[in-house]
């Protein structure tokens, strides 16, 4: 590959300059970066809501925030964290990393990828705007009927919430399909399924979970909207409907949802542990089987959210057994990671520190989850602060800590600079201490009888001291994130430049510059092991990289390989930048928001959507890569 070819490659893959380029890019790295930044902004906003709630709960009978506003706050906090932060950010990290780990130049369906970002952004803006205008959701992130029906939740609050779900699920499903297609067709030659990085495996299983779970919540929320707007009776017991139908449909999605959030983190941990232990993961095959088993089992647990609903006890017991069973694959993974660290040569850099934090917190949360799986015990602690403690331990410990480790791990690759280790350590310890101070006492609060979703509580039940501790802890957590922002801003301004391979990682993402050029790889890398950049199992870096020539550089093109064995199959043109994903997303937003107020919005609004999507698909002269002609 000579300089002229590289230049041609750069021209083919370049974006248009300036704002137009920013709005029309289909580069998976640029789209993923804005996804990650946007998700963190929503995270901080939802976090501020939590700080306000904890202020209100610091003392009994406080009157800082009234019940209506408080109920909106916890509803938006949960909804934003789950729908606007946790799932999108995990998908976004995958959108960035998976093509790089596979050795390809872009994600499959790049325009759909850009479209999904805009849909996600507009949905998130809509729901926060609704909150500011006092029409925010008020029935929790779970929206149980009949509380969320038009009888008990009048006005448009719940309609905005249900439609926000539609926005985020469309975006999430698009990314899931892109990831499956990329993983099944765009792997580097020689990267058989048995040689894929564990992060890629975790994203494959996660994407399949998304595909099978998200339709359930889309159905549930659509039925809720039609109940509220056009008089259907899905959830109305008086006309043959059933409030429990909502719970079944919601939790059929809701339980896999938490694994959709958690499983990418498992992949991140494998990458970090492998790199910092300086040996290949022990037990690759059991690890893959554990991921797949988790993906299947996740769909068989949902009734454990409904143990108090009065379903037949024998059925409930089945779900106890299933819910306990899913601890087995997690246990296998924990063993394999610890075994890898024990038999490797660990280096305690900040990413690994966050992984250690994961162990301390997630195992605790997982064990409280095993407790919750027991029907009789759940009947005491369901809907109390014990559950709040549990899910924050598994979500923050099990997903956020690995994510933060991933940020420190991959920031050099994404931004081309190294974050400060010192500030990272401070952030870690502040977060670890603040988190435990906030959430550990909540286990006890639940056992002492404090229910969830209460805007205040009386004095004299033994809850006061723990609530105060918890509120103080929340502000310590906030401080740790201030530190993180400081670290990021300082690094972007004047941080040290990062090499291609800052941590001597084994996967292909480190075979290119930091940050990677628009085309990712100058030539298609070929692999023959699970750790292409390590010459042996002792993490000795490879001196050279085998590549395949022949993919065109005068237009955007990638190499596709067979789904299982990754043998080269055919070349495939990739789209150029396009404004149609943005136009389509705007048109879709109009449909979604209009239909909150008038069901005919679906019909009339569909027309601009159809026009925009047809223009998107229509071959144009301005698109040389797709053979654009008159």
């Amino acid at each position, binding site marked *: 590959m000579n300089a002229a070819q590289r230049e041609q490659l750069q021209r083919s893959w370049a974006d248009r300059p300036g704002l137009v380029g920013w709005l029309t890019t289909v580069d998976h790295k640029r789209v993923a970066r804005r996804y990650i930044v946007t998700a963190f902004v929503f995270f901080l906003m939802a976090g501020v809501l939590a700080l306000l709630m904890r202020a209100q709960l610091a003392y009994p009978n406080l009157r800082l925030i009234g019940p209506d506003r408080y109920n909106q706050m916890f509803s938006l906090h949960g909804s934003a964290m789950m729908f606007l932060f946790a799932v999108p950010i995990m998908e976004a990290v995958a959108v960035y990393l998976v093509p790089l780990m596979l050795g390809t130049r872009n994600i*499959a369906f790049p325009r759909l990828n850009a479209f999904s970002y805009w849909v996600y952004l507009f949905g998130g803006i809509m729901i926060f705007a609704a909150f500011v205008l006092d029409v925010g959701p008020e029935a929790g992130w779970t929206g149980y009927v009949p509380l969320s029906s038009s009888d008990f939740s009048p006005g448009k609050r719940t309609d905005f919430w249900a439609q926000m779900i539609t926005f985020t699920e469309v975006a999430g*499903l698009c990314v*899931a*399909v892109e990831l*499956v*297609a990329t993983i*099944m*067709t765009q792997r580097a*030659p020689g990267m058989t399924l048995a040689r894929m990085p564990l992060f890629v495996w975790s994203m494959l299983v996660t994407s399949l979970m998304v*595909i*099978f779970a*998200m*339709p*359930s919540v*889309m*159905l549930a929320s659509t*039925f809720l909207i*039609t109940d509220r707007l*056009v*008089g*259907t009776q*899905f959830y*109305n017991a008086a*006309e*043959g*409907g*059933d409030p429990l*139908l909502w719970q*079944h*449909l919601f939790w059929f999605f809701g339980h896999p949802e938490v694994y959709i959030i958690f499983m990418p983190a498992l992949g991140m941990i494998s990458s970090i542990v492998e790199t910092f232990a300086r040996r290949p993961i022990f037990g690759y095959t059991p690890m893959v089987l554990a991921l797949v088993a988790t993906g299947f089992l996740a769909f068989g647990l949902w009734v454990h959210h409904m143990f108090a609903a009065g379903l037949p006890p024998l059925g409930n017991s089945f779900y106890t057994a299933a819910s306990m069973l899913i601890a087995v694959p997690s246990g296998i993974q924990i063993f394999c990671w610890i075994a890898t660290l024990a038999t490797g040569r660990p280096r305690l850099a900040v990413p690994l520190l966050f992984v250690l934090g994961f162990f301390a917190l997630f195992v605790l949360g997982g064990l409280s989850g095993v407790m919750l799986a027991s029907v009789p015990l759940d009947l005491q602690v369901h809907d109390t602060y014990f559950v709040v403690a549990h899910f924050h331990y598994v979500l923050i410990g099990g997903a956020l800590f690995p994510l933060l480790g991933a940020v420190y791990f991959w920031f050099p690759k994404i931004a081309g600079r190294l974050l400060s280790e010192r500030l990272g350590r401070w952030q870690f310890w502040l977060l670890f201490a603040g988190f435990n101070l906030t959430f550990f006492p909540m286990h006890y609060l639940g056992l002492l009888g404090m229910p969830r979703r209460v805007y205040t509580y009386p004095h004299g039940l033994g809850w006061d001291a723990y609530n105060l501790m918890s509120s103080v802890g929340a502000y310590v957590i906030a401080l740790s994130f201030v530190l993180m922002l400081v670290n990021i801003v300082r690094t972007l301004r004047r941080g040290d430049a990062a090499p*291609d391979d800052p941590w001597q990682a084994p996967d292909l993402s480190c*075979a*290119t510059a930091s940050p990677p050029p628009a085309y990712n790889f*100058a*030539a*298609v890398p*070929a692999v023959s092991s699970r750790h292409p950049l390590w010459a042996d199992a002792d993490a000795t870096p*490879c*001196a*050279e*990289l*085998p*590549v*395949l*020539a*022949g*993919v*065109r550089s005068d237009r955007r093109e990638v*190499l*596709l390989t*067979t789904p299982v064995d990754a043998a*080269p199959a*055919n*070349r*495939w*043109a990739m789209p150029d930048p396009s404004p149609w994903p943005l136009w389509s997303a705007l048109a879709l937003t109009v449909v979604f928001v209009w239909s909150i107020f008038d069901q005919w919005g679906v019909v009339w609004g569909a027309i601009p959507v*159809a026009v925009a999507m047809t223009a998107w698909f229509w*071959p144009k002269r301005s698109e040389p890569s797709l*053979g654009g*002609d008159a």
Partner: protein
Amino acid sequence: MSRAMRTIGDVAGLPDYAFGPTSVGWWGVLGFMLIEGMGFVLAVGAYYYLLHNEVQWPPNAAPPPLGWATAFVVLGLCSEVPNYLVGRMAQAQRLQAVRWGLILMVLLGLLMLVLRGFELHAMNVRWDRTAYGSIVWALLVLHTFHTITDVFDSLVLAVLSWRKHMDGRRHADVADNALYWHFIVWSGAGLYLVIYWTPRWL
């Protein structure tokens, strides 16, 4: 890159399109079918869930009339023949067959939508009367929506096949569209059995 690259092969001779599992578009259609299929499975699940709460099914109503619905399914099954052929012709890149085949598929699809319109008009329970009415309408509207999108896709492809240069990639799009039409027809047949025959077989 800091590592040296060693060229071990050349793929310039490979084609730049494909049909089936080494086509990105194929996986897209597969993903969409899985998503919509799961939606149908869950909606059918909701149908039977609501059924088990009732003593009489349909509650306070006769089973839905068979006429137009049966015509829709029969026409759909018949359309599978030209649909399958269009898919094969697209793989063989036989342009004229593809062009006329797509026009035929669009016409068949439009006719089916007309039948579906009569079917909905003849439905004997409204969506806002009972939960039964709501779920039956939900199933039919969901399926109709997907039928409309596929007929529209076929129309766009038909226009493209007549007006634009059809290379291997575009023939692959036609083949993918044919695959999706299989899904439309067979999911429609399944829903027909659920909606129209569950009340008669119970």
